[in-house]
């Protein structure tokens, strides 16, 4: 355990390693200590608030969001983000609590969607099956629970990554199945469409706003139920199994049954999300349940912090809103791009003097280079920044963008990546010096090349954000570091 980084909020009384005392255990008190000053006061106050007022507050805050978000697109982004949050919360049961790497999770989502679709369309018989949601949702969820048990069965024998691969097969098999088997019922690649909306007792949900509120209510309810579960015997059993299955067995915890339950509960949450997704889209297709979306769910959970439900929700919201809300338009992608760079510098660069120096030199370097290049060859700066809005006008005589920036932009992109890797290798003064041209080149490449291809840039940024975030905070935004039994 000697390679653990020192906890920052170490208390004064602990002076150093002591013989016979595990460092991690010894520092446990220190980690629980409140921060000094007002932040500690705030923490102490918030800790006294129970879990349900906090959840209710968060729910009310969420309910106010549609009053701020005006248009259908923003509501759609909200729906996507809530779906992702719900899915992340469900995935957290198996991955975060029970420590089972379930790569077939997406299949439960698809199963819920297809289950709802079959029960709410003309697909199964000529007259069609049109159950109200009050019946179809429970049917789908119970079926998913049973399916979860079946898929979880191999977990009795499989450990770690071997379980991951078997569940991955299951996920892939689901897509293959819906694509190729019984096309007259499941629709093949054409999917199932013209589904009923969610309806019961004569009320039906048609608008995006309605689905936003439905998802919000479901998310809050799910969190409440799962919180009760988490603090019950079952929850403690899950964590015991995650930390050490052998020790858990010795303490008479029925390890296999506990694992199966984790799969099953996760499956139910995913199926619920899938059913709402199907109803909102009014159609289902195999491609929506393929691996790329599974990766997003995992990214949301791990980014937020596996093991923490608040983290899962936060991760889902952050990933959903970033990906669909910001990165789809190049103006807002620009805010994210420049914002993240500044944020990284702000967090990583100390003292402030150095930061000011670096930013100042970058600005000066840009104006100087621009003037020099313009004097030599005016066409080399003729392109101008390709983004729009105030950023573009601010950067107009700063960045160098040639007339036809594609090739130059590509070369710049490769050089930029090389510089970034070099930055990791070098230290001290040299790092500060190399940082200046790197920042400037990043801005040039963004304005010259990346803005022109917003769709591809969106994917590149997603990858970059995942790498940087995981490196900055491996345990996720709200996750806590814990001892891993290796």
């Amino acid at each position: 355990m000697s390679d653990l980084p020192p906890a920052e909020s170490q208390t004064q009384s602990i002076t150093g390693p002591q013989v016979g005392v595990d460092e991690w255990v010894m520092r446990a008190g220190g980690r629980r200590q409140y921060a000094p000053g007002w932040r500690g006061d705030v923490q102490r106050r918030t800790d006294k608030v129970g879990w349900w007022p906090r959840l209710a507050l968060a729910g009310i805050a969420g309910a106010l969001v549609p009053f701020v978000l005006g248009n259908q697109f923003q509501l759609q982004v909200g729906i996507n983000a809530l779906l992702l949050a719900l899915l992340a919360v469900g995935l957290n049961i198996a991955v975060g609590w029970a420590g089972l790497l379930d790569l077939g999770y997406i299949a439960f989502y698809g199963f819920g969607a297809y289950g709802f679709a079959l029960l709410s369309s003309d697909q199964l018989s000529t007259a069609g099956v049109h159950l109200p949601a009050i019946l179809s949702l429970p049917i789908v969820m119970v079926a998913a629970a049973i399916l979860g048990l079946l898929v979880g069965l191999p977990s009795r024998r499989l450990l770690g990554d071997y379980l991951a691969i078997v569940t991955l097969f299951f996920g892939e098999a689901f897509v293959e199945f819906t694509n190729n088997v019984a096309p007259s019922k499941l629709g093949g690649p054409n999917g199932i469409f013209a589904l009923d909306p969610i309806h019961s007792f004569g009320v039906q949900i048609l608008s995006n706003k309605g689905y936003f509120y439905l998802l919000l209510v479901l998310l809050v309810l799910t969190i409440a139920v799962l919180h009760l579960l988490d603090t019950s015997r079952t929850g403690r059993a899950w964590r015991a199994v995650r930390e050490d299955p052998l020790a858990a067995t010795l303490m008479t915890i029925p390890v296999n049954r506990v694992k199966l339950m984790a799969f099953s509960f996760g499956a139910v949450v995913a199926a619920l999300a899938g059913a709402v997704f199907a109803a909102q889209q009014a159609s289902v297709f195999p491609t929506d349940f393929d691996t790329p979306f599974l990766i997003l769910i995992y990214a949301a959970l791990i980014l937020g912090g596996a093991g923490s439900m608040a983290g899962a929700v936060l991760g889902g919201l952050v990933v959903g809103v970033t990906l669909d809300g910001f990165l789809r338009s190049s103006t807002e992608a620009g805010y994210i791009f420049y914002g993240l760079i500044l944020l990284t510098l702000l967090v990583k660069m100390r003292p402030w003097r150095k930061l000011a120096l670096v930013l100042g030199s970058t600005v000066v370097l840009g104006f100087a280079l621009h003037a020099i290049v313009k004097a030599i060859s005016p066409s080399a700066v003729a392109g101008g920044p390709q983004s729009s809005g105030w950023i573009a006008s601010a950067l107009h005589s700063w960045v160098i963008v040639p007339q036809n920036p594609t090739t130059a932009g590509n070369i710049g992109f490769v050089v930029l990546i090389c510089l970034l890797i070099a930055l990791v290798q070098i230290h001290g003064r040299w790092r500060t010096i190399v940082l200046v041209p790197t920042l400037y080149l990043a801005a040039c490449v963004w304005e010259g090349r990346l803005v022109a291809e917003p769709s591809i840039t969106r994917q590149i940024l997603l990858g970059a954000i995942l790498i940087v975030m995981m490196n900055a905070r491996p345990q996720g935004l709200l996750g806590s570091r814990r001892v891993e039994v290796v």
Partner: protein
Amino acid sequence: MKGRLLLTATALTALIAAGCGSSSSSSSKSASAGTSAAAGGSSSKCNAAVGFEGPITGQVAMLGAEQLHFAQLAVSMDNTANKTNITLVQGDTQLMPAQATTVTQQFISNSKMVAVVGPAGSQEVEAVGPLFGRAGMPFITGSATAAALTTGKNPTFFRVVSKDSVQGPQDAHYIVNTLHPKSLLLVDDQEAYSTGLVSAMTPVFKAAGINVDHESVSQKITDFSSLISKVTPQTSVVVLPWQVAANAQQLGRNLAEQHKKAVIFGTDGLFSPGTFTINGSYVSSFGPDITSIPADKAIADAAKAKFGSYGTFGPPVYAATHVIDQAIASVCKSGQTPSRSNVLAAIKATNEPTSILGQPIKFDSHGDLVNGKFFLFKINAKGQYKQIPSA
């Protein structure tokens, strides 16, 4: 650790808040953020935004990128010709209906947007058709050909290519009557486009008493040798209603590698003179080779210069974008400001005597092309496409 976390969280919240604020206050600004085409006449006031939906990234990026390039080309050429100021906003769907739904909501919420080119896949049209219908937004696809789309349920939907139920039987009859196979291999690629054509063709083959071996391979597969090993000496035709021409080229190579004599018959997805060049193959397409039409020379040259080689998916999207551009221009000419309803009316009234696709463009009441024709080509030893005169 806690302090840094707090800082990060605060900054993140601020960032999100800033983004939300800006996106709600400036949806018009984000509209112009897309690839803005060069404005034609600075004095003109004909401003409008047109959306583009297609798989710009993901498994079939080659399809979507080509479509995007031709849409950009059409907008910039038409802007110059009509003195309009139309901007094209791109939305990536990765051929996934869920993403198409989000992009569609983004476009509908953009008040400046009057029409959309795309989406590319039939399953995407199924998912987003009702949304566009409710918003009264016209959308024209260059590649979604499922017959079920134009049964009247999508009032704002148009397409510049004929549907499966026209192309499938026509191709199948040609195969039966001209190639006279005893047995044939029919392979779909597990996409809506392909399975639609297969189900339109199969009855014709069955009726002619031909022995049909139906297989299906995913678009992600790049080796067909084990499939080709199943081709018997009696199988003289391999029918490939595929979207990815490079896959068919590889299948052709696998045939040659195993010295099989069967001939490939492909549908419009394989029409790709730079990529699919198997000697003796047949390809049916919704238009003649645009490089062979003198009137299209300017477009073909511009496309070649800007994007290099291209296949079958670009020209129809050019035609679709052109229809929208002309509709917007006509609205402006009549003194109105372009809106969804008047552009929709103008698109419905479209009557182009000729087009980049070598045939007139006129829509029926459900948005289908009136009298859509298909052209048949045979590939020679040099990889050139030679048009077969229609019987």
